[in-house]
């Protein structure tokens, strides 16, 4: 086998593994890739915080897990480093919208950043649910950086059992 042939084969292998990796990445995390916007209209004066946030990554992965049973839908969203009150959760039929803002803690603004991969600012993530839900009776909690939301399914979306009369 010629060297050129080997190089070619190596390249096509690398390309295959790249495209495969890309497809896998897109399937798995395409929806999780969320844009983070630095908060604007804070005034004319640029604060140290604004400057750091503007340098940070604009995209973060907010990975969601969605599961359901007959009665309810459960969504778990990974959003580390926020506080429970930073979230704004809204539901419209079968779409769940989670908004939030990841703030830079004051102490963090003083030092010099060498690596900045985590995204800061405002974000919005919409998740399509497997069925329509009711916002009445919805529950949410935030633990270990994971937001868990449990939504009861709307009456029409629940499977109904019909008993057969025995005579």
């Amino acid at each position: 086998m010629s060297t050129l042939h080997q190089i070619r084969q190596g390249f096509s292998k690398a390309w295959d593994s790249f495209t495969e990796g890309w497809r896998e990445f897109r399937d798995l995390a395409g929806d999780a890739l969320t844009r983070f916007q630095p908060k604007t209209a804070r005034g004319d004066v640029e604060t140290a915080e604004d400057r750091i946030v503007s340098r940070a990554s604009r995209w973060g992965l907010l990975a969601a897990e969605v599961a359901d049973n007959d009665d309810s839908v459960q969504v778990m969203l990974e959003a580390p480093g926020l506080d429970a009150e930073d979230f704004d959760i809204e539901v419209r039929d079968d779409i769940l919208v989670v908004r939030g803002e990841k703030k830079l803690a004051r102490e963090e603004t003083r030092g010099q950043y060498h690596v900045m991969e985590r995204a800061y600012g405002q974000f919005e993530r919409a998740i399509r649910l497997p069925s329509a839900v009711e916002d009445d009776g919805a529950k949410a909690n935030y633990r270990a950086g994971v937001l868990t939301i449990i939504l009861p399914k709307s009456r029409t979306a629940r499977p109904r059992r019909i008993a057969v009369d025995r005579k």
Partner: protein
Amino acid sequence: MQMVRYNPWGVGELQNEINRLFSNWGDTESSGATAGWVPSVDIQEFDTRFQLYVDVPGVDPDAVDITLDNGVLTISGERGLPAMPEGEKMVHRRSERGQGQFHRRFILPDTVDAEKVKATDRHGVLEISIPKQAKAQPRRIKVAA
């Protein structure tokens, strides 16, 4: 005023971010080749210490292993499927979360004090504080009047 290049679609920016996401997999500093997912990290330097923030949502802090050996800081651990508090009857409809092992490696200057590394967990973010040795800290010199 800061000049920003006109970029109507933001494509270049997205491209950069995607390249960054990919370059994390299998580069020398992290060797993510066998990793199931790669946590994002911020590293910040203060006068007296380095501070790392590592995003590890849903990971039990006790299951994270932090070692500092010859100036190489390694953070590793593993996570499985998230627990379903509502019982076993739940059926998964969508799963975006990376699973399995993770590890990241960083080379720190040899002025750090390996004995005094501290780590805490706050809302899924691991905060690791690595103090510098006293001799590496900046000193103020007073000018004699």
